[in-house]
């Protein structure tokens, strides 16, 4: 197990390096620089500025300085657009917001998705099963950018129950809609995966043995069926997490929650390269770390995996 974890970390680190380098070279190859402007700056001044920001050094040195600053002091450099803010400020203000509703979206998707899938499998071919399956199918064609306007239409414009945007320090009514909009399509997928794997497990031989022994049904489900049935769900959590991180961009820009996605979008629209890179690297790191965690958890639950 320990070796497996080490090996998994050994794969994650080069992945991170590739992520950082590729985005760095993309930025480097983009036309124009941070100090290019319509009025030409005197050559001497330009030289001084370049020296101050290490822009006169060769590319690989710039890259290593960039990585070094990120690793040692989380310094992603200054924003190209906002004069008095650097990328770290933007991340610090936006990240907690995204994490908060992201966490609730995750809880919503996993909690309801798994219960729905298990119920559907236990009541196979009944009305409950068909309802769960329909919910799963409908949820799959309602990605966050479709779900968000529909939710706002129903709960904000027609019913007037919830605010249509804003954050207000994370009060509960401001979290509900973003979390549901972000989580729905994953809820659907999780329900579908849980249902099919639970059905497969319930039809397997060892469950039949357990029932033949006369174990109570409830005990069989909790003790024998649930854990193996969760394996495909756990391996789906990696992609689901990536999807949610990506989806947070939509949620932030639609619900004006002030999360990190807004900075990404504004960065993209303003060509604020430092911000886009910083956010890409941060979210990429999160993704890679989470994928690694999922792999480790998977290896831990699945006795068939040898490491």
């Amino acid at each position, binding site marked *: 197990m320990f070796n497996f974890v080490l090996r998994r970390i050994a*794969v*994650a680190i*080069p*992945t991170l390096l*590739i*992520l950082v380098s*590729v*985005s760095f070279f*993309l*930025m480097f*190859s*983009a036309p124009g620089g941070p100090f290019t402007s319509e009025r030409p700056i005197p050559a001497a001044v330009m030289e001084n500025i370049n020296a101050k920001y290490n822009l006169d050094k060769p590319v690989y040195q710039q890259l290593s300085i960039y990585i070094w600053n990120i690793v040692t002091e989380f310094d992603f450099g200054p924003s190209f657009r906002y004069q008095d803010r650097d990328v770290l400020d933007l991340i610090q203000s936006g990240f907690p917001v995204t994490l908060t509703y992201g966490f609730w979206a995750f809880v919503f998707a996993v909690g309801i998705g798994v219960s729905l899938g298990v119920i559907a499998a236990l009541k196979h071919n009944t009305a409950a099963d068909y309802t769960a399956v329909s919910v799963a*199918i409908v949820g*799959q*064609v*309602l*990605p966050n*950018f*479709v779900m*968000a*306007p*529909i939710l*706002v*239409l129903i709960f904000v*414009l027609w019913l007037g129950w919830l605010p249509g945007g804003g954050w207000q320090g994370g009060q509960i009514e401001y979290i509900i809609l973003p979390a549901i909009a972000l989580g729905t399509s994953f809820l659907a997928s999780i329900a579908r995966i849980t249902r099919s794997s639970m059905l497969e497990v319930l039809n397997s031989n060892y469950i039949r043995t357990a029932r033949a022994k006369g174990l109570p049904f409830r005990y069989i489900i909790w003790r024998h069926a649930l854990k193996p049935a969760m394996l495909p769900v756990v391996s789906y959590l990696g992609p689901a997490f*990536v999807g949610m*991180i*990506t989806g947070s*961009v*939509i949620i932030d*820009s*639609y619900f004006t929650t002030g999360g990190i996605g807004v900075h*990404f*979008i504004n960065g*993209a*629209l303003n*060509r604020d*390269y430092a911000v*886009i*890179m910083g*956010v*890409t690297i941060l*979210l*990429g790191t999160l*993704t*890679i770390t989470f*994928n690694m965690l999922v792999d480790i958890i998977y290896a831990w639950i699945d006795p068939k995996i040898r490491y």
Partner: protein
Amino acid sequence: MLTHKKTNVEKLAENLGNEPIAGRSLWRDAMHRFSRNKAAMAGLVVLGLIVLFAAIGPFVAAWHYSDIDWSLMGNAASAGQPSIANGHYFGIDDLGRDLFARTVQGSQISLLVGTIGALIAVVIGTLYGATAGYFGGRVDSIMMRTVDILMSIPYMFFLILLLVMFGRSILLIFIGIGAISWLEMARIVRGQTLSIKNKEYIEAAIASGVRPFKIVLRHVVPNLLGVVIVYATLLVPQMILTESFISFLGLGVQEPQTSWGALINDGAGTMRYGTLWQLMFPLGFFIATLLSFFFVGDGLRDALDPKDR
């Protein structure tokens, strides 16, 4: 009773002699199974209608998708509803442009991105996966580790990064979406190839001295077709989703061109003013297409999956 049966049997015997027995290929079988699947057939019909809509829509529309109806501009909420009389079958959008023509245009772009993106993914993914699976060993492990690494990178951000750095263009979206979505395909194809490469006909090909790459192209790839078709059908809606995602953020297609994602974004932005049709028409097309693709994909999987045979 007995005599009656006898005549039946005799008839059968006669018929057997007369009619040649038509063999049923695997594909015929699959088609038969598919055509019995009601949801999949319904999906196919809806998809056909949507493609038809995108194809002949421009000839039906009374307006061009970029023209502004100056007589209605500015009062979309009061006078811009869908109406047959003034030629705006789906109403007008916020700027006074004909929503029917724009929905047609959006459908064209979305469907194109979906199919071309899926096509690129299929070609790259199949060749890559088949090569890795067929050659095995170190080649395989290097190729698949690369896929693993690429898969754990949040590609959507990279696509947006690309679009920002090199300017937005529909071509870049095509290439970008196709080029990042072949990874899953490569994995699936590799898995299938591993089981195909031990078949007798591959052995026969090796024994008769066919060169490795030719074996991959001639003997492995055609036998992957079933899996590839199923996943390609499931890839198309994914591509449409990705494009819509980017366009919803305003980073995709550029005005006056549009796509479902951009239209949904516009509609969602103006629904507070009572112009709900601006959201509902593109949303309807989007959801109908995605649902149909999922049903068709499911139907194809059931029809082509060898496990059920």
